[in-house]
């Protein structure tokens, strides 16, 4: 019988970012910031700028929640949040690169 691996202990930084990502998915602006596959289609003119704008929203949400479990995200640097968001998106097969390689049907 196979068991899926589930780490014991507090959620990792990536897990914390994932929790906030799921909460923010309701937010239309957040979704549009993650949508573009190419710089030309980015809301803020480049994918990097869109990534950092999305990371800013994640950090603001973490601070707004006043949740001890999200404390790390609320005080994290944007570059770190942006990298963690990349990990989270890859978990869902939804990173920009993955979607670009899959044909970018939604663009």
């Amino acid at each position: 019988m196979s068991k899926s691996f589930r780490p014991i202990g507090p959620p990792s930084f990536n897990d914390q970012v994932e929790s906030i990502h799921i909460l923010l998915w309701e937010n239309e602006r957040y979704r549009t910031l993650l949508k573009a596959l190419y710089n030309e289609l980015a809301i803020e003119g480049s994918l990097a700028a869109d990534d950092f704008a999305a990371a800013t929203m994640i950090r603001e949400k973490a601070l707004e929640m006043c949740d001890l479990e999200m404390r790390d995200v609320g005080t994290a640097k944007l570059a770190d949040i942006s990298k963690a968001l990349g990990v989270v998106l890859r978990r869902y097969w939804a990173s920009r690169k993955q979607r670009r390689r899959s044909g970018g049907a939604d663009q």
Partner: protein
Amino acid sequence: MSRNSNVSLREAPPLPEKIEDWERHIKAERTLNDLVEDIHRILVNEDPKYRSYLRATYDAHAIEGSLAADNVLAAMIIREKAKEIGSNEVAEEKLAIINLALGVVLRRYNASRKQRRNTVGGQQVPSEGNGD
């Protein structure tokens, strides 16, 4: 005897009294770079956080962990200020574009990250051609 001694001088047009009456005849519009420069000059004076976002010359020193992130946050502050003072062209611009304009502005003052990174004893040295 001067040739035109009998010719009375034409009177110069009166100087406009109000600023609304001053019509600019050079029609060159100010560029986005100029508009961003105006806001940059305001922010450098009044916002220490803005200055700190421009200070780092390496990722390791960046407030937000990377120079790219610090650039975007500086651009966000510029856009917010533009909204506040009614500079619509900048207020409606994309962050990446404001960031590019800010790069131009900083180079005007020899204050870009790259220029400062390559400065030794007040003198700029050539980079090694490794993208630095």
